[in-house]
């Protein structure tokens, strides 16, 4: 009995310590999950708030999102994830919304040229114009892919250099090439890769990335990530355009 008592006494402190460390661990774990739950709830509330606001905007109840004043939006660009661009009904719906908001000039872009293949061909058959640009009654739609971006600049470089070499040989000067930004712009125009610089670019896709949109045109473009095209809604679009209309750019000054 004394032996059992002695053993119990000898073992008790480590057992007690072990039990208290388990309890502490459980408490910490509980606190962690509680904190996580609070943050998740706040996050969910914010998300539901945005969803609700988008739905209300879609119904037309909020006046300030009706009759948007888009005087500073000459051209709107839309980048779509190529996989999501396969569903052309979504893109067509987006175009119809933009047409109803009276956006005059739209540039559609996807990395792999899916939009050119699908919507571009539809437009071509309807309006008998080029694959890249189509003038409809209310708006101009330009459809681009990766080949119109960096490859276009490479072709413009080729054009510029060929022109420089010809001029240089005629002058027999052997002068160093001095290209300027305006010369590159003119070269892009000469080879048919010039387009308007969009003031606003909406990115529909999983990644917040412009996916190689023609870099020359992106200098001062506002970029807004709209989430997946699958979950697009009119309210989000109206809100993005409204926020853009309130923007003020200093252009570095």
């Amino acid at each position, binding site marked *: 009995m004394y032996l059992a008592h002695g053993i119990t006494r000898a073992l008790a402190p480590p057992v007690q310590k072990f039990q208290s460390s388990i309890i502490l661990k459980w408490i*910490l*774990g509980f606190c*962690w999950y509680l904190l*996580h739950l609070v*943050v*998740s709830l706040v*996050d969910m509330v*914010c*998300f539901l708030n*945005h*969803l609700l606001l988008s739905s209300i905007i879609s119904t037309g109840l909020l006046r300030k999102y009706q009759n948007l004043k888009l005087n500073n939006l000459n051209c709107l660009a839309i980048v779509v994830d190529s*996989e999501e661009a396969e569903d052309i009904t979504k893109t067509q719906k987006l175009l119809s919304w933009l047409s109803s908001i009276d956006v005059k000039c739209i540039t559609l872009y996807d*990395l*792999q040229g899916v939009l050119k293949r699908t919507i571009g061909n539809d437009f071509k058959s309807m309006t008998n114009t080029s694959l890249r640009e189509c003038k409809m009654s209310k708006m101009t739609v330009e459809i681009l892919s*990766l080949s119109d971006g*960096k*490859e276009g*600049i*490479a072709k413009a*470089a*080729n054009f*510029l*250099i*060929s022109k*420089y*070499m010809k001029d*240089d040989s005629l002058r027999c000067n052997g002068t160093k*090439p*001095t*290209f*300027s*930004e305006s*010369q*590159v712009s003119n070269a892009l125009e000469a080879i048919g890769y010039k387009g308007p610089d969009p003031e606003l670019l909406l990115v529909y896709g*999983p*990644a*917040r*990335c*412009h*996916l*190689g*949109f023609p*870099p*020359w045109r*992106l*200098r*001062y*473009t*506002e*970029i*807004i*990530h709209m*989430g*997946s095209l699958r979950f697009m809604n009119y309210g*989000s679009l109206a*809100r*993005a355009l409204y926020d853009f209309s309130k923007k003020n750019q200093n*252009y*570095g*000054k």
Partner: protein
Amino acid sequence: MLSYSSLQLTSPFNHRQTLLSSAPRRGITSNDSYASVLPCRPRASPSLISSLPPVARSLPENSPAATLVDEAEQGAALSLPSPLRRELLPSHVAIIMDGNSRWARARGLPSSLGHEAGYRALKKVVEHSHKWGIRGLTVFAFSTENWRRPKVEVDFLMMLFERVLKEDILELTKDGVRICLIGDSTELPKSLQNLSKEIIEATKNNTKLDLSVAISYSGRRDITQACKSIAEKVKHGLVEPEDITESLVAQELETNRILEFPYPDLLIRTSGELRLSNFLLWQSAYSELFFTDTYWPDFKEANYVEALASYQTRQRRFGQRI
């Protein structure tokens, strides 16, 4: 170890992503030729993460080498904030350091103090990048458009750049930071040009972190000067006109000529503006864009961790199907 799930808010209007942690997504270094990039792995569920067995050791547990390796790994793991995973960190981060003047105005201070505070924020970010093993950091300090600012402010900024370079050169050299300057240096004051050359020379053998400072930089000018370089090569017969491709233009860009990782995986802009403002137009094709409302002087470690954590959760496919 406690396992925890990730949160991701994909609302289009919340530009700041609030996350507790990230599920492991393999970060992909952006690449000009997207077809050669490996696709992302599918996202692992949190329960899978917690049930993964620990990595097997190749060294006997009690050997001195094993102890050293363990200590190094432990040190590296301890220096990284908890939501970040070393293998998912971007190789190259670019930052548009915007908001110094607005930060100062909000506090009733002159712009010069805003820029000084911005410099202190930059020092901290360089320190964190160095500590966490990010290999490249490019910061947009002064654009070609900024020359249109009041002369007093421009002169102050030039003096600040000189002072900063003079003061920190020893520390940066000791820490293994290589300084590079991109932009039109001919526009800069002569003293700053000479100092820059000295510093670039002094740090050229450092390998821990490539810090590129874009001063008098324009993305369009970068592309234009690449065309000019190619023209000179064609003139000297080094390149044929028909060999002018996208890759050749990319090679001649300032970043591609001097940096090991020329394409930023993550591009951060502070102060709530949502544009590139003529910064790394070509190089940012596949960069994850992270816009935050925080002004640059207020950009602290927590903000940086938030941006990096956001990067780690993104499913970046670069046009590939997964």
